[in-house]
Structure formats: C-alpha cells, structure tokens
C-alpha cells in the first residue's frame, strides 16, 4: 500500500524514470529539475546535471527556483558559460536528455514558446526560445512535462520555436537538424505521449491512473493517435517519499492536494 499521491506527483515520477544512470541531462528549474533530482537520488546516482547558465554537475540543494539560483551552483565541478553548456556539451552531441516546456505543443511535438497569434503583431508575446530550440535540436532524447490543457495541444503551433518532428517522420532529417530521430516523450497529468517514428506524430502510450482515452481526447485539440491504453505504473513508496522528503520538501513545486488513494 502506497500513501496518497497526486497525478502531478506521478507525472514527475514517470519523467524521472526516463533518466538512466550516467546520462548527461540538460535541465532548467521547475518540474524538470524535480524529475532529474529524483532520478539521481533513486536509480541514476551518476547522472550529470548541466544547467544552461553554465554550471556543470552541481549537488543541487532543494529547491531552486531559477537557473541563476545558488542552489544549482552548490559543489558544481565547473562554473562555465552558456556556450560551454549549450555549445560544448549540447550542440557537441553529448546531451542524452533535455527537458522542454512551452505554451503550445502540436501533434508533431513542435513547441511554441515565442508568440500567440501573428509573430509580427502578436496577441501575446511570450519569452521566446531561450535555450529551448537548442535543446530540441541537439539532445538525443527530449522530455516535455506539462499539465494537460486543450489550449496547450493545438493542431498547429502559431510559431515553431523548438523542433519536434516538424511535419513528419523525416522532418528533422530534411531540415538538417543534428539529432535526426530522437525519442520525444510528453508526460502530462493525464497521459504519456511519445513520437511514433513511422508517422512523426505523438501517440498515446500510457494513461495516468483513473484517466480514460476520452479524457485525453477531450483535452487535446489535435487528434492524438492511440498506441496503447496501459496505465503508468503507480509510484512506489520510495519514489513518493524521496520526492516529497528530499527533492521538494517545502512543496515549492508539488503540493499535496487531491491525493489519489490506492
């Protein structure tokens, strides 16, 4: 019997399971940071955490709130530059995993973090690429953690900031993107979607406990393909304990609301 958990907890835990030992992982803060640290404390002790701003392999102090937070610099091996992280590690082809976020994710897993509406006369201007385009262009595996809302999953992004599979299975290769056929995994509080290498489109591969395919379809603007409807494995007690006691002990990112009792 596992104590209560929320779907947000499980979303982060499922993301952490994607990280393997000795992986070099490019992370900002927020939920990706939580997922990475959880992996490091559980099954990937030799994971190398790299922060865009230049800090390499810190022992992160819970719970940072910015890529400039001293908590992501603690006992770092090197305080490098953005060029070291995004050029010398990421573009160099050494990043096993990168995390992305964005306002819109389309069916090819292209991501928009630039603007809603027309680019030159936007309805809402967003922060822009930052390192996101770089992460999406070069990492071997791309993870996207996001809460599942219809407006976040349109048929087409208003602006493609970071490449998914562009427009099909050969979209990245045709565009000359170095990481030609990466795994892309979108993990939400409703389901897990992954890129189907045959179509270049997102397919539903797992559902969160108590969530139905219809729940996902209702909350997605494009029509997601369905590969399976197996459930995401429930969290273990150790995953839950480590998450709440060691990684986010102050509940900065994960509140203990709406528990699902198993």
């Amino acid at each position: 019997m596992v104590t209560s958990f929320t779907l947000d907890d499980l979303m982060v835990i499922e993301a952490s399971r994607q990280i393997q030992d000795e992986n070099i992982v490019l992370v900002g803060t927020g939920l990706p940071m939580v997922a990475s640290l959880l992996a490091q404390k559980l099954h990937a002790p030799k994971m190398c955490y790299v922060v865009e701003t230049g800090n390499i392999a810190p022992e992160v102090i819970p719970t940072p709130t910015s890529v400039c937070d001293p908590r992501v610099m603690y006992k770092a091996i090197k305080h490098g530059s953005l060029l070291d992280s995004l050029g010398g590690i990421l573009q160099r082809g050494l990043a096993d995993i990168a995390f992305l976020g964005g306002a819109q994710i389309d069916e090819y897993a292209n991501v928009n973090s630039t603007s809603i509406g027309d680019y030159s006369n936007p309805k809402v201007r967003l922060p822009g690429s930052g390192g996101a385009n770089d992460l999406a262009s070069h990492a071997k595996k791309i993870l996207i953690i996001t809460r599942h809302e219809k407006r976040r999953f349109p048929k087409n992004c208003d602006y493609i900031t970071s490449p998914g599979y562009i427009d099909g299975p050969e979209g990245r290769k045709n565009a000359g993107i170095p990481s030609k056929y990466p795994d892309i995994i979108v993990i939400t509080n409703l389901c897990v979607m992954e890129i189907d290498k045959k179509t270049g489109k997102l397919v539903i591969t797992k559902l969160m406990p108590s969530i139905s395919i219809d729940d996902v379809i209702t909350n997605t603007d494009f029509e997601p393909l369905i590969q399976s409807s197996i459930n995401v494995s429930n969290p273990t007690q150790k995953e839950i304990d480590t998450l709440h006691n060691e990684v986010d002990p102050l509940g900065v990112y994960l509140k203990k609301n709406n528990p699902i009792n198993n």
Partner: protein
Amino acid sequence: MLNKIIDKTMNPKDAVQEFISDGDTIGIGGQSIGRVSTLLAHEIVRQQKKDLTLVGCNLSLSMDLLVGAKLVKRTECGSGSFERFGTAFQWRNAIQNNLIEFQDYSHLAMASRFLAGSLGIPFIPTKSMLGTDLLKKQNTNKINPFEIINNPWQKDEPVVLLPALQPDVSIIHAQMADKSGNIIIEGFTTHEPEMIKASKKVIVSCEKLIDSEFVKSHPEKISIPYIFIDAVIEQPLGGYPTSVYNYYEHDSDHILYYQEKARSGGKEYSNYLDEYIYNCKSFEEYIQKSAGTNKIKALKDSMLKLL
C-alpha cells in the same frame, strides 16, 4: 603583469556619459534574476541615452527598464524573461504594440554570435534553429539575421551562418574587479565571457574592488583580463534586486512589485521609474527605498547559508 597599474575606476555617471552614446548597440550582462547590472541600467535611464539596440541571451530587468523608459529601438536576444516571475512585460508590451524592432535567436545562437565577435571572425556556424520559425519568420529585414549554406565538407548538409556581434559597449555587474579591470565572476557566467571579449567597450560594476596584487597570485580566478575593460565601478548591491552569487539572494518582493508595475504599464509604470530612478539621488537611496537595511541583511544571510 603591469609594472604600473592603469586606473580605470570611475563613478557610474561619468562612465555612462563617456562610454555610451545615443544609437549604440549595448550588450546586457546577467541572466533572469541573477547578476543583472541594475546600477548601470538605472544610470542609462537617468541619462536618457536614446535609440539603443539591446543584445544578449536571456534579458530581464535591464532590458525591461530601458524599453519601459522608451530608450530602445531594437532588441536581439534569446528570451525576455524573469523565469517564474514572468515575461519581461514592458518588452512584451512594446512588441505587442509595435513600438520596437526585435530579432529572435536561440540562446546558443546569441552566444555563438558573441563568440565570433570575440574571435574577430565575421560569422560563425550553428546547427540550431534549423526547421523552425526562428529561421522562417522575421519581424524586420533591415539586417540579414542569418544565412543558410551547404557544408562544403558534407553534401546536402545545411548549416546556419550567424553574423558576428560586437556591441559598442557592454554593461556587466561582477563580484570583484581590481582597478585596472581584471574581473572575477563567480557562479554562472552565461553569455558574458564571450560578450565582454567581443565588445568595443565594457563598463563593469562590482561588489568589491580588490587589490591588483591578489589578481597576480590567483590567475585561475580571473574571468576576464583588464585589456577588455574600460571602466570599473565599485558598487555594493549593484545587482539588486537580482541575486549575486556569494553576496546576496534575489529580492522576490521587489521583483514581484516591479513585474506588477511593468505588467500594468502606463501611469503605474512611470510612477515606478519616477520613484526608484528619476527621484533617487543615488543608487543607495534606491536600495533604501526598495529594500532597506534589514531586508538587505536577510538577503545576504540567505545567500551565505547556501554556500
């Protein structure tokens, strides 16, 4: 090293007056809520330098203040964001209302442009941005923001060429410097090493002025040698309300307050500029108004606990 030290210490007023002109391209140091050169951004606002082009990677408070004060013609950057504190709202507002030109790049693309500038080469390749709207959609075509060519060593491999960037002047807030301009940046360094070395002139403010003899015995600590630096200003808390590693944490309260005013805009925003810049006789007065002694002590203590 120098047998005789070149003394580059100045006050912020003289430094901005001497080294920044209307129409300049200004390299902006810091990232998000870390080590933003608030002191120098305030001084540029105070002196009303106009028609500026701002360049950098992740730009936040410096850019937003200068855009909000209507001094900016154009931005070229990777993002305008305070992370969890939101978008750079005055910049967002200016873009949404067609008040400024803007050119979007990825962070690596901007860092690469500075690298090219720092090496004296006219352009540099990247493999980022391919296949995306960063290459397909442009807001203005006055300056060709990139070229795509085929890799001469690999048939049918497209490569993006980015033009080198050498700002007329860059503004930076560092932890330490000696008076000749050997500077020490601790913690993250973001795009600054490349940007500083690419710039035609550089103004550095620092938390602490250090002895040049210390510099000579700690070459591994020096981030940038003095030959790239034109003016050195000692100003403790010069990065407030953002954090300075080893010195103080960011002030969430004041950043939230700024963001509230920046998002509202109009009178509320101009009141902010009046109160915290135009009507402040000194940077110390701004610090006292926005934080006060106890808050500053708390931010310092909070940082020290994390080291």
